């Protein structure tokens, strides 16, 4: 296990200590494993909470900041945080205008966020929930609500965060973020496994020369395993599945996210984007803006995902709005 760490059991807490030490002006930890904006709660603003297992930076606490989310509950590597932590975050960020939970569609997170929402309601805080469920590889359209949430959640944070920052009501934030979620699709490819520090061995095997199309960001099974293909072929396979699913059509305007899973160099992400751009151009789909880099990782897994979100004027404005966190900045 070629990792820079001390005690694997302290991985999450030491990482959080490092983050708080590095960015004291921007982030604080009001309770164990609960990370919020230093200036939270922002009075009168709808607050956005997220959270989930560790190992995906900048997901989750990397999106805590201006124009994005207000707080995140942080679990062990690939494991849900507890409902207590989520409740701690909820109380720390509640500015009196309601709280929106935006997180990925995984069993443990749902059980715990749902319980936290009930407990928060008991405390008089109105909580609404929107799930990231963008991975087209994880279930067919007829079971779309069981899909995994992967890198596309970045767009949900961006839309919800910009709407909330602009002063929208909880209902309005929910409505526009739901529209974003409905217009969003992602699919990825893995080229190597990753190792949970406390486990010490890779979660699964993926022999050299092979790839797995559609693998989840915790190593969950994809749709097919086969010989590693060219960037152009990979882009073709991912986009074919994504485009057909919504479907995206000639004349659509989209935002594109090419996300690296951890070990894949940015050089390769741009080679992949080159192929994506050509294919979209061929389909008559206009690219409004692109984000390329590591937006949702899986420790040191090699691989990438492509996300598309279909845009209207309101969504374009929200995606273009400024945002600033210690991990992401856009002006």
């Amino acid at each position: 296990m070629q990792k820079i760490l001390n005690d694997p059991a302290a991985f999450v807490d030491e990482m959080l200590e490092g983050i708080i030490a590095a960015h004291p002006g921007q982030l604080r930890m009001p309770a164990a494993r609960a990370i919020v904006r230093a200036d939270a709660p922002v009075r009168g603003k709808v607050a956005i909470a997220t959270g989930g297992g560790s190992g995906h930076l900048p997901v989750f606490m990397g999106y805590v900041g201006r124009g994005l989310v207000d707080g995140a509950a942080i679990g062990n590597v690939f494991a849900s945080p507890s409902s207590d932590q989520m409740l701690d975050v909820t109380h720390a960020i509640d500015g009196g205008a309601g709280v929106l939970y935006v997180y990925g569609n995984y069993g443990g997170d749902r059980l715990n966020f749902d319980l936290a929402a009930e407990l928060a309601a008991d405390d008089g805080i109105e909580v609404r929930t929107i799930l990231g469920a963008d991975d087209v590889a994880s279930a067919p359209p007829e079971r779309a609500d069981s899909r995994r949430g992967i890198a596309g959640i970045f767009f949900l944070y961006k839309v919800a965060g910009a709407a909330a920052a602009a002063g929208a009501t909880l209902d309005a934030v929910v409505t526009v973020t739901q529209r974003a979620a409905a217009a969003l699709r992602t699919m990825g490819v893995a080229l190597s496994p990753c190792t949970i520090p406390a486990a010490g061995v890779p979660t699964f095997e993926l022999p050299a020369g092979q790839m797995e199309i559609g693998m989840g960001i915790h190593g969950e099974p994809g749709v097919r395993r086969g010989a590693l293909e060219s960037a152009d072929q990979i882009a073709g396979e991912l986009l074919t599945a994504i485009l057909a699913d919504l479907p995206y059509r000639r004349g659509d305007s989209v935002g594109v996210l090419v996300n690296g899973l951890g070990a894949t160099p940015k050089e390769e992400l741009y080679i992949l984007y080159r192929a994506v751009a050509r294919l979209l151009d061929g389909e008559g789909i206009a690219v409004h803006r692109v984000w390329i880099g590591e937006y949702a990782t899986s420790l040191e897994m090699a691989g990438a995902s492509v996300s598309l979100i279909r845009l209207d004027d309101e969504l374009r404005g929200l995606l273009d709005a400024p945002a600033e966190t210690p991990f992401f900045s856009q002006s």
Partner: protein
Amino acid sequence: MLVEAVARDLATHRDELNRLDGVAGDGDLGLTAATAAAALLELAPSLDSMPEEEAIRRCGRELATRAPSTGGTLLAFALMAAGKAEVGSEARPTARAAAYLRAAADTIAARGKAAPGDRTMLDALLPAVEALERGATLREAADAAAAGAAATAAMEPTVGRAAWLADRARGHEDAGARLIAMAFEAAARETTLGA
């Protein structure tokens, strides 16, 4: 003490549970089990002085805080419900266990929206509960749980992470079911030894 025996045993199966969970899930159930075990071992001394029901609920709350993965949270809900089950105070130990575990199984099914045959912990837990309800010994219940876990190797997963690429799971037991079978086995062994 039963909690300690089960916790100590589960911790030794960390890597096996990780491996099974890695076949179709995210390879961390062994870590969750080890974390839960450590939490319960810390808690155990304080349980002695509590009424049985309260001790069970207390274990559930501990799992909810310290091991909040899918499996851990479902077990937490299950124990919290078990500790509220209607149990005749006169009842024999196995009858009490049957009542607690029936409540636990119902809670997992409800919270997890899972049915028998869905390739989950339930497929090991339910056979054990039914055996206890029929008056079986803990030893026999443990065997029923093991058989139930073994049967999951042939099941189509439809819930949880494993549902996403059904094929890869085939031929391997569900990790959560295995964990339940291990817990029953450890409990049965402890009860026999302690008897």
